[in-house]
């Protein structure tokens, strides 16, 4: 009896707590904020999971940033409350030139913006082709930031659509050309013999370009080998 009473009391308390204050009840955020990292109008491809964008909402006492997760194709999407935000490109984490200017974003309903960055290198004319079980990948690279030196261009593989230099499986092949073997503007060709990988039913490939001294690569689109 006493137990039942106790339970009832708690239930009542909970109900009272939940129902009393209409002031605290507001709808969850519903506006979507979409965007894309771009350079000269072209999307920038990165390693998924690096912290490159943060949103701040000025005018409040606390300045906790909202992390914006950017996918490997450079796009992002957040659900926010309507309002004015400042979008900050976190210095140093992405393979591009620091830009300390924040971007003011007015979020009302669905908002879409392009976030411009200047990557150290950009990749163009990407092509993949399989000949006799050898993957031939070609691309051109262009230096965008004068002070940066090229370290290497690599061809990465993975078993899933997420391909970057950290998600490789243990036996994944990597074909690499170092800066000395590369001339800027010319077609760079990377080859990888895939004969030993026939037991991988799925295989995806991607070209990555690394600048000296920065841990992150700039990537091409992901290509489905099979």
């Amino acid at each position: 009896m006493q137990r039942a009473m106790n339970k009832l009391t708690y239930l009542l308390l909970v109900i009272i707590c939940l129902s009393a204050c209409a002031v605290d009840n507001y709808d969850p955020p519903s506006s979507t904020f979409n965007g894309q990292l771009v350079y000269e109008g072209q999307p920038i491809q990165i390693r998924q999971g690096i912290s490159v964008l943060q949103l701040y909402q000025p005018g409040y006492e606390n300045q906790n940033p909202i992390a914006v997760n950017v996918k490997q194709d450079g796009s992002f999407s957040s659900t926010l409350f309507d309002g004015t935000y400042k979008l900050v490109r976190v210095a140093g984490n992405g393979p591009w030139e620091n830009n300390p200017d924040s971007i003011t974003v007015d979020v009302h309903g669905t908002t879409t913006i392009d976030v411009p960055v200047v990557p150290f290198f950009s990749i163009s004319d990407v092509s993949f082709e399989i000949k006799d079980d050898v993957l031939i990948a070609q691309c051109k690279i262009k230096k965008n930031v004068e002070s940066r030196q090229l370290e290497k261009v690599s061809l990465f593989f993975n078993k899933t659509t997420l391909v970057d230099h950290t998600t490789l499986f243990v036996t994944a092949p990597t074909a690499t050309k170092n800066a000395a073997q590369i001339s800027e503007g010319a077609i760079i060709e990377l080859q990888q013999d895939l004969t030993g990988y026939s037991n991988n039913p799925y295989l995806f490939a991607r070209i990555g370009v690394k600048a000296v001294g920065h841990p992150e690569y700039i990537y091409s689109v992901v290509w489905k080998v099979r």
Partner: protein
Amino acid sequence: MNIFKKIIICSLSSALLLTFAGCGKWLDKEPTEILLDDQVWNDPKLAEFALANLYNRLQPFGGLEGGKLSPTDVDEAMWSGGLGGNNGRNTRVNYPYTDKQYWDYGLVRDVTLFLEKLEASTVMDEEDKIQLLAEGRFIRAYIYFFFVRSMGGVPLILKTYQYNGPDDVAGMIEPRSTEAGIYDFIANELDAIKDQLPQTEKSQTRANKWTALALKSQAMLYAASIAKYNNLMTDPIQTANGEVGIPANRAQGYYEQSLAASKEIIEQGPFSLYNQNPDKAQNFYELFTKKTGNPEVIWALDYTLDGKYHNFTVENIPRSLRENASGSAGVTPSLNIVEAFDYLDGSPGTLQTQTDDGADYIYYDHLEDIFAGKDYRMAGSIITPGSTFRGQPIIIQAGVMVWNAETKKYITETSATLDTKYDDGDYLVGPDGPLPNMANVTNTGFYSRKYLDSREGSGQGGQGSDVWWIRFRLGEILLNATEAAYELGFEQEALGYINQLRERAGFGPNSLQTLNMDMIRKEFQVELAFEEHRYWDLKRWRLSHVVFDGNRQSPNTLVYALWPYRIVRPDDPTKNNKYVFIKRVAPRFTQPRNFRLGNYYSTIPQNAINANPLLVKNPYH
């Protein structure tokens, strides 16, 4: 029903209290259960109690209690214990930016209060007062060393504040000091108090002249290597006003200060390397577990079975020796660190498991034979297959390999149960594993030995171990001296220091003739393994993001294991019942370690930034 009762009791007691509120005298009574300021700060014994409390709070990361998992932050070890939260250390995609975050201004306030109250005390003997004040300042310098190595420059708070309402806040907020500024503060404080502290090591657990010098040796070396190696990066990690980053031209001065402090300890100090047991492996083990008459220990965090003990042994003891219903095999050393120990003939420490052409295994008569000729510090720090602990051989065997004469191949047979026998009556899986997925069994094929208590009963939950945690020891100071001397261009002097250590480890006299930074770094890695140095050492050399680059194919991002198998091949007596070894990625370790540039300095807590707008964020956050 109860609620009503409580309400009645509450209202009755408040009414009762109200009736007393008028009687001033009754409230002025001296309390019997707490000590008042004047009582504490006028009695050296009581002041020492306050000091003991401060000493007890100086172990934020490493150690034998909360920080005992610190080797699993680097390539020294992985977690093989329970499958709960700690297993996340084997599967984390990134080090979080809050990793090693240190913002204990509560402790700073307590130390500052200690100093202020003591300073104001009029009754205490001048001599007691000077020593206690110096100890307090030493503790404060040590805390700021924790701050600066985790966070970079932090606000330097040297007095206590009284909050009297919101108007006071503006006068209380302090900006961050520069990183160099905090290191300079540490150096100046230590210089100032060095001669006020006891000049002999009366105690190995309280500050004296030598602990102050040891801290200076370490802190100045950190400052120097940050000044040097940070500026060698393509993008040095720095903020505009130097909260993070030290100018390159400061490196030389810091190296000189570090070397001077180290030399004073080595040349004038009462310390010598522990060398009391002719069995060099056992000697190295005893260095950490023998507490009486240990000439190498400069400063330790002590434990006693009278109430202050730790469960390091409960958590890390080999499975077959465990004395508790749960626990064991928590922090298990990696093959990476085992192979970092060189052979005594000077050759690199890679274990030989296959013939040179890779066509066949190498067959060893006994489990322990594969480790023959290794640096004795390996056996002193790690329990390897076939070695003994507490007099019992530790049988680590993953299964058997049975020869199939038709296919001319081995078939691996194993079991999911520990301590099982194969058809021939000999071991299938050893009593100590390894097993791929079982909790509290080694996953790597090794167990921790350094700091593991060999006393029976120390593995029981209710009792634990009283082995102490060494904060500074002469071996470390010799390494600091080696590095500083080498960086300053005194190679011969550096060789003199490093060769002493190597001789104690079993190498011949003057085993090194030339030196480079890689050799020095290797020596730091193996001599100080599991002592919470490697994380910080890699960081100050700015190598963390190179060693832990997130690439599964890099040599040290994954934890590797060595799994022994027994051969069953009765038709070939040269191979039957011998042992072969397989190197593999430890099965429970799935994510390559990825140290991002933003991990070099931890995040300033957001609530601190919200409360103090002068705090600038660390880079990359």
